[in-house]
């Protein structure tokens, strides 16, 4: 946040920023008051049902600067996909940094995530002394056909039943409707944040946006909505940002490092297609449908994750997002061993080229960027290309 007078929106941003940095803060407070916490991976787990059950939902994330030694001592050989990110989360689980979780929902998404279920189940079995939350495997298909939607719906119903079992009470339709209203409001407010970032000129940075969006996954939604409203109230006073408009596509990004590097080059990341970024909030739940069915429908048809078939949906989503944000260039960032993401790059590059939009690709990236200078040099070169094309 920039500017002179300390605005209400600035305070709201700082509060969201605090929760982005101290991701367990709100959950621990909730736990301290006697509440229970349900952790989950990815953007494929319906927070709405967890909220309606009276639990605190928190999306698990890693720490690029954290240790991974304990995780690496426990992983199955060949368990290497996106190892930095996944090992970091596993390490935190195994070393008690997520000791406030009562339950953990692991969805059938990318290989590196869904295999955590198998691994953690085996670890629990072989070492009963290990304190891990109770696990629930949320199965789903990787295709988007009608029959798969029915399958996913039934699995989501089982999650609902399990949550009811955990809470000891039935989840009423009204509770689901209330949860939908809260999360839909959150998505709508986050869309306004996305619009500020994609404005011409942009009013907020990508680094700021990632923190605002991310904090939504670590806080109670009502509180986050309140902060968002306060934040957006002062939006007309936000200073404009100059520089090149860039878009980031690629592996899920739960830290700021890459965006900080990019935006240190007189650029703004005006949008992204990341599940820790705009993709988290771009599809609301249809309130004209029965609430549970609407939730199931939304998660089956949400904006595509790179693990989903067909790839053409991903390419189209990326291209449309770039065009809508009027990005001048695109940076692909792919973690080491992120097999789902890396195969899409040629198609996305081609689709962008056809529209005259240049791109660069950072492949095989470590979770912690220890050498930012080469990336920075590449970004600067991309910017030069864009400016040369004007």
């Amino acid at each position, binding site marked *: 946040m920039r500017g002179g007078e300390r605005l209400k929106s600035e305070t709201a941003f700082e509060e969201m920023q605090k929760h982005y940095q101290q991701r367990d803060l709100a959950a621990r407070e909730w736990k301290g008051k006697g509440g229970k916490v349900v952790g989950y991976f990815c953007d494929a787990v319906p927070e709405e049902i967890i909220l309606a059950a009276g639990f605190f939902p928190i999306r698990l994330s890693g720490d690029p600067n954290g240790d991974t030694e304990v995780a690496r001592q426990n992983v199955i050989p060949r368990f290497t996909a996106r190892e930095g990110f996944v090992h970091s989360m596993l390490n935190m689980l195994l070393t008690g940094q997520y000791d406030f979780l009562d339950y953990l929902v692991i969805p059938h998404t990318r290989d590196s995530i869904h295999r955590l279920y198998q691994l953690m189940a085996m670890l629990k079995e072989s070492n009963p002394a290990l304190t891990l939350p109770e696990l629930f495997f949320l199965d789903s298909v990787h*295709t988007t056909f009608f029959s798969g939607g029915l399958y996913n719906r039934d699995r989501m119903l089982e999650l609902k039943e399990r949550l009811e079992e955990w809470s000891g009470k039935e989840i009423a339709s009204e509770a689901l409707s209330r949860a939908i209203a809260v999360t839909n409001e959150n998505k709508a407010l986050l869309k306004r944040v996305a619009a500020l970032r994609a404005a011409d000129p942009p009013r907020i940075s990508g680094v700021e946006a990632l923190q605002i969006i991310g904090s939504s996954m670590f806080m109670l939604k009502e509180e986050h909505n309140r902060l968002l409203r306060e934040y957006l109230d002062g939006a007309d006073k936000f200073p404009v940002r100059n520089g090149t408009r860039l878009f980031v596509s690629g592996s899920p990004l739960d830290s700021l490092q890459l965006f900080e590097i990019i935006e240190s080059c007189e650029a703004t990341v005006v949008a992204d297609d990341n599940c820790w970024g705009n993709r988290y909030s771009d599809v609301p739940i249809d309130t004209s449908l029965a609430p549970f069915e609407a939730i199931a429908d939304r998660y089956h048809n949400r904006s595509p994750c790179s693990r989903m078939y067909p790839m053409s949906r991903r390419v189209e989503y990326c291209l449309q997002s770039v065009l809508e944000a009027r990005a001048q260039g695109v940076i692909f960032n792919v973690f080491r061993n992120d097999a789902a993401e890396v195969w899409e790059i040629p198609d996305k590059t081609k689709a962008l080229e056809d529209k005259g939009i240049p791109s660069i690709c950072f492949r095989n990236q470590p979770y912690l960027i220890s050498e930012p200078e080469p990336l920075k040099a590449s970004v600067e070169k991309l910017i030069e290309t864009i400016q040369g094309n004007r």
Partner: protein
Amino acid sequence: MTNERGAAQLASANAIRAYQREWLEDTRQRVKRGEPFAICNGDEFEEVFNIMDIPVIVINYWNSIIATKRMTEYYGEVLTKSGYPVNYFAMGLASTIDNDPETAPWGGLPKPALIIGGTKSDTEMKVLEIWAREYDCPFFPLDFGLDAVPELPKYPPPPRWWEMMADHWDKLIDTRRLDLRVEEEKALINFIEVTTGKKLSMAKLEQGLELLNEQEMLWGKARDLIAETIPCPVSLRDQLAVYQAQWHRGTVRGRDFIKAYYEEVKERVENGVAACPNEKLRLLWMAGTPPSWARWAEDKYGAVCVASLFSSIPIDSYYRAVINGDVMRALASRHMVLFLETPDWRLKDAKIHQCNGVVETATPSVPSFNKKLFEEAGMPLCQIPRDQDDEEVRAILSSFIETRLLS
């Protein structure tokens, strides 16, 4: 053809090797005449194509041919030039992108009528989708094919799960997933019928599953003979070469290939023929291709690799009894779960093959789940950094054999 150090190569294995080449040429001719041809992910559906008399190439088999022809580096460069990562699973895709019959093994593959495969991994579905686009043919994705995630209602798997897989597979597979998979496979069969004009009947499907089960049962009997006979009657190379018959399961030919194999192994046992007469130690090699250091270990220590990761797959994994008369369900269960990679299964193989030790490739910094179980069970396990016959690997193996197996 005689192996100068022991028994001749198995005639039955050579027959399978030779047939594969004939098969591809025949397939090419059939495709030229306008018949359909399919590309299928390994172990996911190919017996249905076999039963429908639609030639099908299994992707991992085709990739292994490319590797055998030492073309992985060349095709890796093709992938790189196209912007894709270098990945073994994508070697077939690379050969299609390259589009050079002069360079491709066996002159390359004919254009398929369709490609099918499961969504089993981050990589595979993407590769298949891109591959189908390169061929301008349909891709039909199937959910849950040999998925690495729990197919089981409960995880970890029950002990000695392999004893349940043949007759009680329904206890090992998630019913809900299986329901969907059966529906998807029915839809796929409809699609194949429309696309290719070929037909499938339940009678043919049932007959195919019977042939499949017979083939795997004979394979199991051959495995038992190999396991219980000292010295080992069949080289690991021949054991693995025979594996190609798996691509013809569900057919009379596939069954007969393995029948001949079993009979030849039996004859060797009766005649006391040894693959390596110098056998003094028996090893289980935790891989699917013969180790590059095998000959050195045999010559220096009489240490013979008698079993591999594939030794028990036919009998422990492929056989499926029909439960409640539901053939589709039995077959679909096979497409969803082939085996469960648990250390106790591998330990069982080492024991039944009367092995003195086990060798696996492992990164030193990553602990092995196998090692703990194996060592606790009194089965020494050696970890080598790579499958390469070099000084470092030989030194590790020498130390292991001399200090753990011979001392």
